[in-house]
């Protein structure tokens, strides 16, 4: 009864033995599967559509909007929670350490304060690393690669679960409070995606709670759209950049876009940033001033200083090139490190130890740098007073000749308004006296002894002369290596802020060096501007995002004037960086062996046809199939197929052929077996409820494994009629179709299975995502990746 395409099976003995090789980037893992983006238009679906009224469709549309609103609200709330808790914890930690240092500066024994700092940091990071390694390893890292994969159509196991969200949020808090060189922005994108996936389903499988709402959206197609909205909301909450968020989703996952979806995603982004803004303003007792739209606030640049002149554009391009080079170096180092980690540091206890060690080293390096730094600057103004806004404006007007002073005051006012408590923020300018004389502050401490967001802000906005060359140089160098070392640890943390910080430091260095070397008018060489460009260049060189990153930076600085230079810088950084190595996220996707489909099929692959690409022979089922056969095939652990072509017998004169008539998925078969939809039973029990699409949705997304389904010996002899449940019109291609053509179908339609047929519609093979993803352009032309069990 079972039909396979009969091709001779001579498996040579060498190939049958599983070969073991060390992990490398040229592998595809079997644990990743595709999402079913393509809708199965079976009879159940058509029936349901017939039953649904016009009003029903309107309600669906409305509920999509409601869901997007909810996604925005919850994402914003999570961002608030992270922000507030980090602020509190870091504040407590820094004040304890600072007090301790001050105490020991008097009496001696500073190494004790150093140890205190080390222990505090390691303790925070230990908690973060333990929850990640023990409960949800997928929550490690920034989560952007995973979300990128999900939006690409790969089902990454457990990536959008509630547990992942909880671990992610707690992990981020721990790692940021633990003083690692990390940011909390990347994880926000992941969190937003999880929120979206959860809210849109109207239930939580983990908590076993079903609200009986939004049941229509329980399929991959709808869920993936909502996840892209959630990612956008996450970006928007992280940077206060709603348009940037939408463009991020567009850039990373855009195969399936239409105007309404874009508009809804934009709605979710806006709601998210508004929620964050509102809640933070209430938290800071400034309910009416909605002035903190994102987790990171770059601060607005003073209008007088935003101008850039034509002669600066070559300088910016030059900075872009530097950013590209440094980014490539960063990626290369991180690539080696990650391979080493995958190969050797794979036991949970080792991973926790490694994270703690990084935290300890970060703390001690920072301490040593601060201690050895001689960069003491006199206090310019006392921080204790919270001057009203008008005074500062007045001051800056009076000092209009002195741009530094002017900018100083502006940045200060802005920061003071910006939500965070003024004493803490302004602390970057004055509070850290540490080892300096009374009445002076330590410039090195302002960059190290602080949360990274604040350091970025002070690099952007502090006036010329705040940092000296040596401070900036050492800071760039150490932070570069620390950040590179940190990314890829088993803690949840992002790479955005460290990149920005490295870039801001060397950009500022660049800006400070300029007037010494050339005779440029000093007003041009406002170092804050160069810090911004450097930050953009470094970030662009590491992550290689283009459009969305430009818009995010423009929105985060609230400054459209810089749009053009930022674009130039990012373009240059990407071009230069791509010459050497891929972007960081792509590297990590590759190292996780994900079958990721890029925008285009690899060049020079037109000579490959579907016949070479496809898997063959294919396991097919008859339209009327015996239960026992199905059970046997599904429980066979060696084959992990998910889609099965359904064939029907047709007679043409004397010859009898098995022709394709549909496609059925493993998940559908499992539901059918679970409900025991057998032909014999239907005859015997007429009153039995007819299976509906709802039953498939209820089982989604965690279909029970085949092992949990018990079929008695009698039942094995029963028959199943698949015609009602299969997708009657699967996409097919002839054998001669070229690889790029197949690729385009996959990428544009979000296919999971593509049946290859011959000219009489007989099944010859099946193309899946892994068959396509294994071809890639290597150094020596087209290369093929290996499939591996992990």
């Amino acid at each position, binding site marked *: 009864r079972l039909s396979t395409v009969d*091709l001779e099976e001579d498996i040579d003995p060498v190939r049958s033995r599983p070969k073991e090789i060390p992990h490398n980037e040229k592998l595809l893992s079997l644990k990743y599967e595709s999402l079913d983006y393509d809708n199965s238009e079976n009879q159940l679906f058509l029936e349901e559509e017939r039953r649904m009224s016009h009003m029903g469709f309107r309600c669906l549309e409305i509920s999509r909007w409601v869901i997007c609103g909810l996604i925005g609200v919850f994402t914003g709330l999570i961002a608030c929670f992270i922000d507030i808790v980090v602020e509190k914890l870091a504040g407590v930690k820094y004040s304890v350490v600072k007090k301790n240092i001050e105490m020991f500066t008097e009496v001696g024994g500073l190494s004790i304060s150093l140890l205190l700092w080390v222990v505090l940091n390691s303790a925070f990071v230990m908690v973060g690393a333990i929850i990640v390694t023990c409960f949800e390893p997928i929550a490690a890292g920034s989560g952007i690669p995973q979300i990128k994969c999900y939006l690409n159509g790969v089902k990454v196991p457990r990536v959008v679960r509630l547990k992942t969200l909880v671990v992610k949020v707690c992990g981020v808090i721990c790692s940021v409070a633990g003083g690692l060189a990390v940011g909390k922005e990347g994880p926000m994108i992941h969190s937003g995606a999880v929120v979206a996936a959860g809210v849109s389903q109207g239930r939580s499988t983990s908590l076993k709670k079903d609200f009986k709402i939004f049941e229509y959206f329980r399929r991959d197609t709808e869920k993936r759209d909502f996840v892209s909205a959630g990612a956008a909301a996450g970006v928007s909450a992280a940077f206060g950049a709603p348009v940037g968020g939408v463009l991020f989703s567009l850039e990373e996952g855009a195969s399936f876009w239409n105007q309404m979806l874009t508009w809804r995603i934009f709605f979710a982004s806006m709601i998210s940033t508004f929620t964050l803004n509102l809640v933070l303003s209430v938290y800071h007792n400034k309910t009416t001033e909605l002035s903190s739209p994102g987790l990171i606030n770059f601060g607005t640049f003073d209008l007088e200083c935003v101008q850039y002149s034509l002669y600066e554009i070559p300088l910016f391009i030059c900075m872009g090139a530097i950013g590209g080079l440094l980014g490539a170096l960063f990626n290369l180092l991180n690539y080696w490190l990650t391979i080493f980690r995958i190969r050797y540091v794979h036991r949970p206890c080792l991973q926790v130890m490694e994270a703690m060690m990084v935290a300890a*080293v970060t703390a001690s390096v920072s301490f040593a740098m601060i201690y050895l730094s001689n960069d003491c600057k006199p206090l310019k103004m*006392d921080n204790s007073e919270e001057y009203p806004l008008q005074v500062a404006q007045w*001051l800056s007007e009076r000092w209009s000749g002195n741009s530094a002073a002017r900018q100083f005051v502006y940045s200060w006012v802005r920061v003071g308004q910006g939500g965070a408590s003024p004493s803490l923020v302004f602390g970057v300018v004055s509070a850290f006296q540490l080892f300096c004389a*009374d009445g002076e502050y330590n410039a090195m401490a302002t960059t190290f002894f602080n949360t990274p967001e604040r350091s970025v802000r002070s690099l952007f906005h502090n006036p010329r002369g705040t940092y000296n060359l040596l401070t900036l140089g050492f800071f760039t160098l150490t932070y570069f290596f620390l950040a590179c070392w940190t990314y890829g640890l088993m803690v949840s943390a992002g790479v955005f802020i460290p990149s920005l910080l490295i870039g801001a430091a060397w950009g500022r260095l660049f800006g400070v060096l300029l007037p010494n070397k050339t005779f440029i008018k000093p007003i041009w060489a406002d170092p804050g501007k160069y810090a911004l460009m450097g930050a953009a260049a470094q970030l662009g060189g590491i992550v290689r995002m283009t459009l969305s990153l430009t818009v995010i930076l423009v929105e985060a600085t609230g400054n459209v004037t810089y749009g053009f230079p930022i674009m130039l810088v990012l373009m240059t950084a990407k071009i230069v960086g791509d010459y050497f190595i891929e972007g960081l996220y792509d590297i990590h996707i590759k190292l996780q062996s994900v079958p990721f489909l890029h925008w285009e099929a690899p060049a020079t692959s037109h000579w490959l046809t579907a016949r070479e690409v496809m*898997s063959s022979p294919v396991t097919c089922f008859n339209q009327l199939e015996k239960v026992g056969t199905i059970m046997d095939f599904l429980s066979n652990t060696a084959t992990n197929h998910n889609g099965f072509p359904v064939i029907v017998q047709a007679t043409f004169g004397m010859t009898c052929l098995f022709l394709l008539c549909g496609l059925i998925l493993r998940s559908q078969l499992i539901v059918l077996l679970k409900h025991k939809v057998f032909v014999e039973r239907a005859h015997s029990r007429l009153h039995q409820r007819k299976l509906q699409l709802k039953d498939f949705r209820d089982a989604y997304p965690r279909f029970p494994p085949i092992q949990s389904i018990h079929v008695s010996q009698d039942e094995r002899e029963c028959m199943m009629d698949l015609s009602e449940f299969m997708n009657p019109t699967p996409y097919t291609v002839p054998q001669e179709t070229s690889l790029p053509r197949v690729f385009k179908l996959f990428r544009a339609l979000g296919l999971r299975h593509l049946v290859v047929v011959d000219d009489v519609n007989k099944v010859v093979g099946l193309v899946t995502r892994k068959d396509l993803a294994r071809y890639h352009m290597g150094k020596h032309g087209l290369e093929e990746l290996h499939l591996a069990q992990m």
Partner: protein
Amino acid sequence: MGVFVNYACLFRLLLWANALTFITAVNIASDATELSGDRALNRPSSFISVPHAFQPDSFRQFLTLGLSDAFPEDMEGTENCLELLSIFGQRYVTLANCLVSYARPVKVCQNCYTDYNNFENIYKNISSDQSGPGNVSCQDSLLWSDRLMLLPSLYSGLRDIWESAACTNCLTAYQMNLSNETLNFLAKLNQSLICFDKYQQGNHSELCKKCKTAYKQLDELYSKMEGNKTLCIDIEDAMNMTRQLWSKNCSSPRKEMVPVIAVSSFMLFLPIIFYLSNYLHSEQKKRKLIHPKRAKSSHSLMNIQDKFS
């Protein structure tokens, strides 16, 4: 009276000339209108001109004459306002004088608060809505009647200085007196400075030892006031100077270089051991390769082609 009529005529001429210049700006300029416009504009400028020497009496006389000439019916109200104007001028001068003389080192708040209060009072008087005798409010005639609005901008200039100096923090309510805390601080400051002076000539280490208590007390008090937000520019500046003086003499050297560096380098040494031991002892993770089912393309292709041919 003849003089008045004369001036009134002149005033009308001015208005007319303005209208004319407006027209010339819009229409084609003709020589005749330009000439008359120029003449008319020149004369009022000499008529409004402000005396350079700041001599209240002559100034007042001049203005009285001028204004009352223009508006003969408002004579009494104007008289009152001009009185206020001259007082404003005097107090402005006094306050500015005081501010400048105490600019460096900053002792503005301690010494100028009475002047400032006076200055503020007179401005309040002017800007209050009370109409004097003759039913005319000086607010309109003195403050807002021209484009320059000199008085408000003079006032806001000094007020902003006062506010940014945060002098109110050092004064009692209504700025009547220096607050107790400020006085206390000043006393302490004095104590420290005297001590510094005393040991200035001798050995620095002696200064550091002897004056330490006084300095520490001062520092503590300052920190406390910083917390209370009762600092004004005088105190901030005085403290800054004192701190610099102290640090110049008694900055402590970094004496713990060795332990700090030792601990840090120990920390830096840890990862090397960690990674090395992992590399040597941890088993390398291997991946099992899987060979997917593929069509033996050449065979089947041949078969199919054979069939069809």
